[in-house]
Each structure stands twice: as C-alpha cells, then as structure tokens.
C-alpha cells in the first residue's frame, strides 16, 4: 500500500515536472497545428467570421488550382536537384576530409561557414553574383566566351539558380554529418580491403557507401525537409518569380494567407505540404532500408 502511494506520488511529481514543457509545446505547436486543421475546412479571410466549407478547399486544390500544381512541381524539381547534388557533394567532401588533420579540419570549417550565415544575407549575396549585367558569374562566363544568363529573371533558369544557392548554403552542414557517420566505420574493413588489393573506388563502393547508408538516410531526409522549407532564400532572391517559376509551396502558402487573405485555403495547402513531406520521407527511408537489407 505504502509502495503504491509512493509510486503514485512520484508519478504526479513527474507529470508536474513535464507540464511546463508540455504547456509550451501545446501552446506553440499543438494548438496552432490543430487550428490549422480546423481552418482548412473553413473559408476565412482573417477578418470576417469563418464559414465551414467541408472539403471544398481540398477538392478545389486538387481539381481547379493550376498554380498549386505548378508550384508543387517546382518544389519536387527543386527538392530532387538539391537532394541529389547536396548529398553527393557532401559525401564526396566528407570522404576527402575524413581524417582529423589540420587541413581537413580547416576545410571542414570553410565548408561549414555558409551554414552560419542568415538565409536572407545569402540570398542578397547571390543576387549580386547572379546579376545579369554586372554579376560575377556572368563576368566569368563572358571572360571565357560564354554568353551570360539572366539567372533569376528568366523563367527557365530561376529555379535552378536558387537550387544551386541552396546546395552551396547547406552542403557544409551535411559534410559535418557525413564526417561523423563515416568516422564510425571500422578502419579494419579498409585495411582488410587493401590487403585484398581493393582499389579506392572498390573500397568506396563496397565499404563506405553501404556503411554510410544510415547517415545518408538522415542527410537525405533532412535535406528534403530543408527544400520544402526554403522560404527565406526564395523570398529574398525572387519572391517566387518570374511568373511563379521559382515559387515553392511555402512561399505560395504565405502569399495565399498574407497577400490574398485566404487563410482557410492556405491552411489546406499547408496540410498538403505536410503530407507531401511525410510521404517523401517515408519513401526515401524505405528505399534506403531496402538497400541495406533492413526490414
């Protein structure tokens, strides 16, 4: 009986101790998320009383909103490009910077440096680099006889230009994650491979890549989420233009809510965004698990 009372008291104390954290979580995350679900079934301009419209916002999104579909496509393309290049570059750099020599550590810092910059600053810096008339990139291209491009002002290039910036911005962060993951691979495996006469490429293919798959899963999932949250960079560089060619779901949702005052519709868009990210992350993890033989 006494033991039972002590346990009961302990559990109350534990609940009480968890309460502040839960309250903050509930106020800052749970409540807004549930509100978002609620408003996704409403027509609401943020001023007048919300009106319940059932699934209308979702059906309209799926059947009548070409812009949403275009932006969804933009986001998939952006995500695909960034995930591929950022992951491969990060793995490549991490492979070369694995040893804890002074040079490697210094280079890791150099690669990581862009990550500590604010995304708006990065956007402004790259705006200058991409300037079609006096930007550094076009100047380099012109110096070797290649005509420059209107990087951010042309619907054909704007998305790729931002993707390149995103890769530059975040590759260093992924290098650090990869370095930590690759350093866990037992050195004996490489030594044994060398004894067997395996080349560097064979070592990479048969040891590094399979052993790095769990880290790759983290990097890929994290990068995917980053690409679906790339608001600041897009907003500071193109605001989604020209003609929505670089619009992402997050910028579209922002404009739907705060420029068009369609809060209910924006809520529905954001719920689709959550499901897209969940689905992509699930598929990526499943693919990588299949490659490692995990079930």
């Amino acid at each position, binding site marked *: 009986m006494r033991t039972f009372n002590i346990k009961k008291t302990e559990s109350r104390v534990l609940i009480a101790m968890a309460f502040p954290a839960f309250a903050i979580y509930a106020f800052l995350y749970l409540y807004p998320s549930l509100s978002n679900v609620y408003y996704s079934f409403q027509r609401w301009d943020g001023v007048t009383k919300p009106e319940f419209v059932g699934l209308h916002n979702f059906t309209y999104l799926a059947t009548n909103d070409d812009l949403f579909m275009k932006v969804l496509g933009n986001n998939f393309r952006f995500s695909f490009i960034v995930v591929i290049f950022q992951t491969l570059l990060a793995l490549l750099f991490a492979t070369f910077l694995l040893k804890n020599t002074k040079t490697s550590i210094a280079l890791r810092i150099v690669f990581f440096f862009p990550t500590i910059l604010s995304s708006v600053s990065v956007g402004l810096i790259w705006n200058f680099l991409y300037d079609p008339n006096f930007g550094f990139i076009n100047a380099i291209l012109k110096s070797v006889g290649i005509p420059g491009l209107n990087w*951010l002002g042309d619907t054909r290039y704007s998305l790729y230009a931002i993707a390149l910036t995103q890769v530059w911005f975040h590759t260093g962060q992924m290098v650090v994650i990869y370095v930590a993951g690759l350093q866990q691979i037992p050195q004996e495996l490489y030594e044994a491979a060398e004894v067997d006469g395996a080349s560097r490429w064979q070592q990479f293919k048969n040891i590094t890549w399979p052993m790095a798959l769990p880290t790759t899963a983290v990097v890929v999932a994290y990068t995917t989420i980053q690409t679906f949250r790339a608001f600041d960079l897009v907003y500071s560089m193109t605001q989604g233009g020209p003609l929505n060619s670089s619009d992402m779901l997050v910028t579209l949702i922002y*404009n739907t809510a*705060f420029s068009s005052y369609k809060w209910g519709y924006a809520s529905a868009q954001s719920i689709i965004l959550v499901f897209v990210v969940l689905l992509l992350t699930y598929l990526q993890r499943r693919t990588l698990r299949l490659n490692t033989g995990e079930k």
Partner: protein
Amino acid sequence: MKAKGITAFSSRRFGAVVAVAFALVATTLPSATAAGEVFGKACTTEGISTGQSTTSLICTMGSNGKLTWTRVRLGSNSAKPVAALKAQPGTIEFHHWRPEDKVVLQSIIDKFEALNPGVHINQVIMNSVDYTNLAYAKISVNNKAALFVTSRGGQFDQFYKGGLLKDISSNRYVSQNVIASALTPATVNGAVYGVPYQSLFNNPLYNSEMFAKYGWTVPKNWTELLGFCKAVKAKGIIPFAWPAATRGNAGQIMNSFLMNSAPDLATLTARIAAIDTGKADLTSDWFVDIAKKYKAMNDGGCFPDNVTGYNDTVAPADFASGKAAIYPTGTFGMSTVTKLNPSMAGKMKMMSMITVDTKPLYQGITNNTFILSVNAKSSSRDQSIANAFLSFLATAPIAQEYAVGTSQHVSIINVDYAANIDLLNTSDIMGKKLLLAPRFLFVNVGTVRNPLEDALIAIGGGADITKTLADTSKTIKQSLGA
C-alpha cells in the same frame, strides 16, 4: 552641398513652387479678382504661386488652354489650421512600415512627449512587405497599437472591414489642417477614418543635368517617348532604369500606363474593377494594348538589358551614377538616390510619362498614402493619446520637419519645403492634372494585382503577350474562385 543648391535656387521659384503643391484642390476665381496681387495682371508661367497659405494664388492652365490665376483653397472650409490637442498620460504603440523615418519620427515624438508629460509613444516598425502582410494580424489583437498606418486601397479596406478604424471626422484638425482632397483615400461614406499623411508622386524621376547636357526634352507623347529612348540609348545610357525584378517598384510604372488608357476616369475605374473581380480577362483589348506598350518599350530599347533580372538595388545606383537618365518610380525614390550620390541633390525632376499620342487626360500620378488611423479597439485613453499625436503631426511645423527630414511631400496645409531642394524641384508636377494612383484600385493585391504586374513585367522583359496574359488570366480566375 544642399545649402549651396538652395542658395543657388531662384528665390522667385523658391517661393512659388512650394505653393504649387496645393493646387490639387484649387478653386478657380475670375482672373480679374486675382490679378495684380503679387505677380501682375496676367500670369505667364504655369505653376507660379503667390505663396503657400490658403489665401495664395496659383497660375494654372484653364480648360481653354489659357493661364489664369486660381485661388488655392486647401481645407474643406476657410477656417485657419488649429493647434495640436493635449494628451492624457499613458503609453501607446505607433505601428508603421518606414524604418527610414524612424529618426525623424522619434524627434517628433520626443517633442510631443515634452509637451505632454507622462505620455510615451513607442514606434513599432516593420519593413513594407512584412507590414503589408502581417500588420492586420498583429494590430487586430493588440489594443496598445493605438496609432497605426495603412496603405491606400486593399490594406485600408481590410482594416475598415475589421472595424479597426476610428471615425475621426469630427476633429477640427482633420477639416482645417489637412488638404481636403488628400482625405479621399481615408473617407468612407463621408466619414474620415484616417489622415493620409504623405503626398506621393508616382512619376518617373529624371536627371535634369543630363537632359540639359545632351539637349533632351521630356517626351510629350508616346511617339516622342519611343524616339527619346532611341536617342538616349545611342549615347550608351539606359533610358529607363526600370527595376523590373522588384515587383513593388516595378509596378509604379503601371500607373502611368493606366492613367490615359481609358476615355475617362469612370471607364478606367470600371475596367479595373472588372478585372479585379474576375468579370473581365487580361486578354481584353484594353489590357492587351497596355501590355503591347510594355513590349514596345522593351523592343525600343527603353529598358536595360536583361530587365527582368534588374532589381531595385541596381536601378537607383545606375540612376545616381549617371548610367541611366530616368528612374521610373516616384518622389519616394529620391532619398535613396541622394544617399547613393549626394551630388544628385537638386538634379532630379519629375516628368509626366505620357503613353498616348492623343491629348492626355492626365499628366501625372499622385497618391495619398501612409494613412494614419486611430485604433477603434483601443481604450478611450489610448485613443485620445493617438488622436492628440495625430493632431500634432498635422500641424505645419511638425509636418514640415517630417517632410524635409524624409524627403516626402505631405498633405498638411502651410508646409514649406524650402529646406529640401529635391522636394522643391519635384513640386511642379503638382501644378499638373494628376490622377490618384490607379494601381491601387486593384484591391485584390495577392490574387489579382501581383500576378497581373508579374505578367506585365514578364512582357516588358520580352515574354509573349498572348500566352502570358492568357495564362495569368486563368491563374487569377482560379485564385479568385478558391
């Protein structure tokens, strides 16, 4: 530099141009009554004025094409401006979107607080983009935001619909200190819900020194404008530093394209409303004609190369450094230019951008914005503080401090712009027939105006007119239906 410019400035023009600002609501008097007061029986120079008070006369062009003296009548009645109200002690927040005005406004707040012990006003400032998007959400749940600004059109309508705007019509400073015509954007069903503090002029700025050097004159019609572009480009100079990559300022030029695009204001308003509500397409002949003119300017070399990538950091820099002849934004762009190159002070003038070959209906654009309103949801004490501060801002010396310090014309009676040569230099536009910026008649900003402007920008950059307008029209209609 500025002092030298002012000294060099002709005293006749100095006294005159200041007052021209108030010609917007001028009431015509028989020339016989007015003649002889200062300048003689007949006026010969359009825009010349006898002073800046409500009893001044201004030389204006009548409908018969003759210059006549016109009495300036600025207020809604003939009563003199009143002093500022007294405030009860307390603290309020003042929300606005102009970080560049922070210092000047703080100086004014300090003076107000000194005159009203126990009063504290805290500025809460966002940049204009964030303010457009977030101000309503923030202010609607913050009763301490007793004084705030809105922009003309969609944002003012949103705050009005939300019941956040207090009716301030009964205050004497509203009827006696503010230029009556400037109150229009803040008036709903005869009640005044704010004071549009700034009188902006959204017309292209040109480098008058460069014009004089090359012997260029301001184009008077569409054909001359395209010819002008050719001449300027031949000199290796960018004719129009149009910041197409920055929608906010790139959109200003649309005002000039719209102002003479319809036979009268009622038709223009109806056409804009039809597009704004989805009843008309961008593929209508009227709008296609406007789009064609954007394309013609691009084809005619008026814009810089790769204009859709030309942003509002580069454009004023090119204008300030003499690489461009015209910076097509408005008076609000002058301070940026003089910050980039102080020697530009006194060299900027404002032009009418005429995009028709027929007789233009309007010669320029004005906009009364930065609408200062009292929060209807604040406590009565906080409202009284906000109202008193608003009345303080509406006194001539304070409005003058704001105008000179921020390089903005204001809508307050008896303000003297003498201390800012750029304000003086651009004041002559006010003597012309101006239209309240039609761009802001598109009240569905996110759903209609932004995509519409993006389409015009793309066309100005060389995109196909038919496809761009058809695609954008479809997007607009779908967005309106969501």
